[in-house]
């Protein structure tokens, strides 16, 4: 019954919002690089701040790469709803007949695709720079793939709560960081176990469970938070 859009990238509200957000993100291609450049720069702080010795760096690498990926993901979470809030399209989503949590899920997926995924694919470069042993690379990518997705999900709740607050970015990190900690614990430990030669599948499974759990809880929490933010 709804009209055929010009681009036949699948109809339906979910894919429409997903495609829309991808287009908006790709239109500001420069901004997409920011989390990656941040990720790379923070990695260079470690040897400068701690020591260039590869033996020292190897000890730190799994945990540091994960901490930096977490911070880079946190940095990009604020923009999830901000532009929609400013141009009024967020209000249109809230009063649309479609289930709001579904539209939020589409936005988070698009956001992950342009921030979390690039971070995951970029991480091996940091692995090389921080002398991460070879055994850790595969687990690093696997853990970051699931981990950044879980972080984007959890971050969407914080973004929804702070979208109407001027300069809400710092408040956003204060709110979501405690909720990021379990993801960091299992993500970093998985890579450490792989580096130590143990099998990290158990830890990765728990990380997957955390991701699945956040998929179930956060879209609804974020949808509720968006309605509240529009009242504010």
């Amino acid at each position, binding site marked *: *019954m709804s009209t055929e859009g010009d681009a036949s990238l699948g109809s339906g509200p979910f894919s429409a919002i997903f495609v829309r957000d991808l287009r908006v993100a790709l*239109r500001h291609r420069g901004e997409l690089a920011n989390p990656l450049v941040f990720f790379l720069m923070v990695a260079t702080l470690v040897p400068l701040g701690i020591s260039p010795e590869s033996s020292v760096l190897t000890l730190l690498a799994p945990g540091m790469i994960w901490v930096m990926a977490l911070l880079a993901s946190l940095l990009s979470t604020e923009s999830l709803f901000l532009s929609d809030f400013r141009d009024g399209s967020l*209000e249109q989503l*809230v009063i649309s*007949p479609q289930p709001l949590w579904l539209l939020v899920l589409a936005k988070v997926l698009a956001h992950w695709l342009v921030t979390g995924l690039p971070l995951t694919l970029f991480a091996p470069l940091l692995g090389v720079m921080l002398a991460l042993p070879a055994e850790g690379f595969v687990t690093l990518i696997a853990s970051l793939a699931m981990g950044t997705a879980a972080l984007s999900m959890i971050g969407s709740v914080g973004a929804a709560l702070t979208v109407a607050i001027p300069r809400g970015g710092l408040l956003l990190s204060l709110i979501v960081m405690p909720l990021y900690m379990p993801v960091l614990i299992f993500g970093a430990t998985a890579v450490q176990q792989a580096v130590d030669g143990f099998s990290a599948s158990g830890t990765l499974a728990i990380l997957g469970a955390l991701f699945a759990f956040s998929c179930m809880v956060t879209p609804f929490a974020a949808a509720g938070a968006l309605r509240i933010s529009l009242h504010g």
Partner: protein
Amino acid sequence: MNPAPLLECKDIAFERDDLPLFSGVSLQLLPGQAIQVKGANGVGKTTLLRILSTSLQASAGVVLWKGEPLSRRLSEFRADSLYIGHASGVKLALSPAQNLHWFFQVFPGNGVTIPDALRRVGLEGFEDVPCNTLSAGQLRRVALARLYASAATLWILDEPLTSIDVDGIGVMAQLMSNHLAAGNGILMTSHQPLPLDNLHFLELERYVH
């Protein structure tokens, strides 16, 4: 026996942090009728429209949609109503066509295609130009293009004619009267006078604290 009202409000009140904005607002919108909410700036016109578009919750009062309490028929009402606020909801990074694409997927349409809708608001040839290069008036028309292609019975328009030029207003007035003639309803605010015949007024000042 006049037909059952499309939208009916009883004693709508709104307060923010215990500071009442207005209370006791009642209105009846019959099919084919338009109601213009009048009042000075800051009296709460936009707040009232946002309440009726379900993006804000009233502190008190009942809203009936086709005789039924709104809270019980929320998604049906949302499919049957169209709200265009000050911020038109148009993504500046995208083109008019891309903007209408996601609007049409999220809100039910009446079969009019995107090129047709854009042509009717005079944006022919601008379908694929990024919106951030368009003028304020053209941006407004992208939002108003939704009116041609929407299946909604109730239009809730917050100053739809801002930055629209003279002949644009004429086209809009024609569009609105056709909409009313088909037995639908319009609820709006506007600083420009509107040449609509079945137009009623709601003086919001009477309900302000």
